[in-house]
């Protein structure tokens, strides 16, 4: 019989450095917990160095960045660089979603650039939340305690 812990991922949830919104984070925490996973929620306005430190501390299977203030592209670019420059975090799956820019048209371009910079998936404003759920399920837990 498989151990239930096998499918349980540890998800680190965070905003970007300039975004003070938190309802998106509260909602996503509940949603991800309902999918059966553990959530470490860092809250609003998380500076890059703190995000790196918390990732090293919690060793998540997946990092979910949610941002709605329109600075997702600008802040996300810096954030993924900081994570990927840190040896232990070079390969951890990181996704970003929400409102990446202030103009709808340019946002498609932003998504492609963020993927090129090291994000594993980008969920645009209005994207189906099932897509996030599928992505979480696709991530293999790093430490399997079967």
């Amino acid at each position, binding site marked *: 019989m498989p151990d239930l812990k096998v499918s349980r991922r540890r998800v680190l949830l965070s905003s970007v450095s*300039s975004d*003070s*919104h*938190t*309802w*998106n*984070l*509260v*909602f*996503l925490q*509940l*949603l991800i917990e*309902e999918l059966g996973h553990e959530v470490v*929620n860092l*809250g*609003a*306005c*998380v500076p890059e160095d703190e995000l790196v430190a918390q990732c090293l501390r919690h060793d998540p299977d997946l990092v979910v960045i*949610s941002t*709605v*203030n329109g600075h997702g592209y600008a802040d996300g670019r810096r954030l993924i660089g900081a994570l990927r420059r840190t040896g232990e975090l070079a390969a951890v799956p990181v996704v970003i*979603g*929400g*409102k990446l820019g202030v103009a709808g048209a340019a946002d498609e371009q932003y998504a492609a650039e963020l993927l090129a910079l090291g994000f594993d998936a980008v969920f645009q*404003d*209005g*994207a189906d*939340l099932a897509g996030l759920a599928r992505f979480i399920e696709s991530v293999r837990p790093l430490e399997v305690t079967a």
Partner: protein
Amino acid sequence: MSGSFAGFVRDARRRGNLVVQPRMGFSDPAEMRAGLLATKRARATAVGTVTLDSYTRVGDHDAVARALAEGLALNGYPIVDHDPATTDGVLAGVRDETFPVQVRHGSPLPESIFAALVSAGLDATEGGPVSYCLPYSRAPLKRAVRSWARCCERFATLADRGVEPHLESFGGCLLGQLCPPSLLLAMTVLEGMFFRQHGIRSMSLSFTQQTSAAQDEEALRGLHRLIDEYLSDVDSHVVLYAYMGVHPRTPAGSFRLLADATRLAVRGGAARLIVKTPAEAHRIPTIRENVAALEYAAEVAVDPATRRLVGESVADTGVHAEARALIEAVLDLHDDLGTALLLAFAAGYLDVPYCLHADNRGRARARVDGAGRLRWTAIGSMPIGHLVRPPRDAGVTSAELLSSLHYVERKYDRAALHAAPTRELRAHELDAGPGVAAL
């Protein structure tokens, strides 16, 4: 003192006029001045607002300097980084005894902001050690309490120059939605008492329009009682914020929501109303949209149908008693209000539902019930167990949370749809699950 912000609101109230005010801030001094002038010329008893940008709010003055050097627009007026002469130029000939101006910001550590507004001779601003720290920042509450104590004391020295400093508590808003009214009332009254302890003698206490007109009116009446009980020795008035949560997507729905906020302000005895505009669901409003909202609220305020409802009785469902229990429990903790607030949050006597800040216990939960009223579903360690009985199934699911967050948007958009069947509003636009970005 006449000519002051507080004096202007007092005079308007004496004449029976509701003061209306926008949320408005531009980084370009010329545009800021134009916005203030347009507010001044609006057909309304209006006061002006200078809202600061979010880099100034978090104290990132390098980012402000870069943006100003590159000519990039910020989302507010950077009062600390603009030259004092520039700010004088924005205000000269605009601010006078017929048109006071308030600075709105959102900073948990506002020393430099207070320094700038004192040097500009501005006599009104807002915030508070809890309400500007817990909802939107990562600053430790202890630092915010110390900082706000110093700022209040500095602001109070304006009185030596013959200026009456006026401070508004943002405690009646917190996260903007899904906080039962009793905690909002307790928070704004406790912040008012904190201001008084640090030398402020003129203040406004706040409340935000929530999900139920009846519950909101009960709350506003409760706030007046609490002011009589705890703050009767200082000059004060009540300010109401038009709904701060997820806004209707239709202009008609948004105007209905603003009309209800105005009626609530008049019936609940608020002296001042801060408006929102139909642009809110989509982007930052323009000057013209702000003026339209101010003039609309001013019209609704003097409508005989609005005035007729003043003084009608409203059911007491315990909002005042809950708020009083929270305030008394905090006052019992320490004579110094700042220390009492820190102890109260550490013990969970005050616990803001859904607030992720590290200094908030985070055990309280609330949702919108079947009648549209906000109700506690978990109270954590708050000392109101004798007054509130949360349901046993205390868990709020992600779907229920989303539904509660969008309750007002849904209600007003549907009402607008039914009232105006000719409008091309397709049902699926209203019912479509909103993206998380709409939060």
